[in-house]
């Protein structure tokens, strides 16, 4: 997760307006789910993948690793859809169990494949967005769609605190290991409990100190900070509209033809 954050800051697409990128990724995701077709999903995976790898600058190996994470989950999830039990005594399956037969039908197999492709298509859209857009820019998008102030302020603080806590946790873990705290389960459990305890106390103390520091700068209940102003170029907007039109046409064609 920390590496994704780093990549988003060094992405070559970082300077492109986050609004354009978000509309692009989210609309493609929606069409991908709505169309629910092999070809379109595959096309989306390839498009988003190549945009992320070739334009945004994520390495192919890392992108592959990222895609594998949901893939395991998806495969496990679709097993239940692809395989089914039937009571039909005529069925030829692989496993017979108390009168039931475990079967795989051609329909269920294809359906499972379609599900995996659609889900991966959707995931690749989100990967494109988070690998090319820093979190602070995503907050701008949330602000633009009128997300409540309080949630935005909380997200800003949480984002910073994730890294502070991660840092603290890493140091504590290192301290435990350097004193052989992880030698066996017997020493490991109390050591882990100690780490969690310190993290909890540490985060409270940190937040109190941070509050003092914010107060000393005149904090009066509202976090306001300077945000970057993005303007989308005509070319970006043009491409975006073109892509949306293409997707709508595909959508209409599919509904009429199939």
């Amino acid at each position, binding site marked *: 997760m920390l590496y994704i*954050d*780093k990549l988003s*800051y060094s992405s070559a697409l970082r300077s492109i307006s986050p609004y354009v990128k978000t509309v692009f990724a989210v609309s493609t995701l929606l069409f991908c789910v709505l169309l629910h077709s092999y070809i379109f999903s595959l096309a989306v995976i390839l498009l988003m993948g190549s945009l992320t790898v070739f334009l945004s600058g994520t390495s192919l190996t890392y992108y592959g690793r990222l895609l594998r994470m949901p893939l395991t989950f998806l495969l496990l999830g679709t097993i239940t859809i692809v395989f089914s039990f039937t009571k039909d005594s005529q069925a030829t399956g692989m496993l017979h169990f108390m009168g039931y037969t475990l079967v795989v039908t051609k329909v269920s197999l294809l359906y499972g494949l379609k599900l995996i492709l659609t889900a991966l298509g959707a995931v690749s859209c989100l990967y494109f967005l988070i690998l090319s857009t*820093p*979190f*602070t820019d995503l*907050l701008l998008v949330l602000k633009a769609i009128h997300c409540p102030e309080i949630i935005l302020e909380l997200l*800003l*603080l949480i*984002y*910073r605190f994730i*890294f*502070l806590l991660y*840092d603290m946790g890493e140091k504590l873990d290192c301290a435990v290991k350097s004193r052989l705290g992880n030698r066996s389960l017997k020493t490991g459990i109390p050591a882990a409990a100690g780490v969690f305890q310190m993290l909890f106390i540490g985060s409270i103390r*940190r937040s109190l*100190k*941070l509050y*003092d*520091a*914010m*107060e*000393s*700068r*005149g*904090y*009066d209940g509202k*976090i*306001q*900070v*300077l*945000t*970057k102003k993005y303007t989308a170029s005509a070319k970006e907007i043009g491409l975006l509209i073109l892509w949306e039109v293409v997707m709508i046409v595909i959508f209409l064609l599919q509904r009429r033809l199939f």
Partner: protein
Amino acid sequence: MSILTMEHISYSYEDGTKALKDISFSVEQGEKTAFIGANGSGKSTNFLCLDGILKPQSGRILYNNKPISYSKKELLDLRSKVGIVFQEPDNQLFAANVVQEISFGLFNMKLPRNEIEKKVEDIIDYMGITPFSQKPVHLLSGGQKKQVALADILVMEPVVLLMDEPVSALDPIHTRMLHEKITELPKEGITIIVSTHDLDFALQWADKIVVFHHGFILKSGSPEEIFMDKELLVQAELIQPKVIELYRELTEQGVLRENLPVPKDFEILKNYMLEAYYGKI
């Protein structure tokens, strides 16, 4: 004219720890003051009191000869004029990226957006933050975080700047850079109070030294007066700066002639020694 005054301030934390006991001192406009003292002697608590973040149980604090009333409006006003740079940048920086972080105080001062943009840009340039101004805070090094922490406060153009151990845990380059800034800023009229363990720096920089010990002020005075008083330093659990120690030894041994002014840095002492060896140059 004194800009900040503390009169008989006492403060104890909720757990009963008495952090400040009957503290009185005043700081003149443009004066360079250094707070010295062992860990836990009350320096940091004093800073929090001076900014109105902690409210002392007794005594009063005057800003511009006017007592602080602790009304919300007046506190905000005080905090826009008295700024603290905290010891640990991680306890001060809260925003996701550098520009956001620096602009926070200006928004609290209710300045117009274009003015904020201009000021943030200027301070980024002044503090040498430009190479990492687009980075998120968590990807900065310790020294860079400290630069941002100082920029946070400087951008608000404070009248008084409180710096809590500004060079603790910094590498030599960042230490030198920060010391240069601390030396530069008073020339622009900013009154600075630094709490520090770097006594060599306190000796050459400060106009006035305040010695804290267990929540009391043991003594305040000129750097010469404080650092020549070896008994005082022992009592305060501090060590005499090396320059002063050598100067004393050499004067006692008769190597240096009597009544030379107390040297504030190595360079001056070196010249004394050269003069003693070669005669008047």
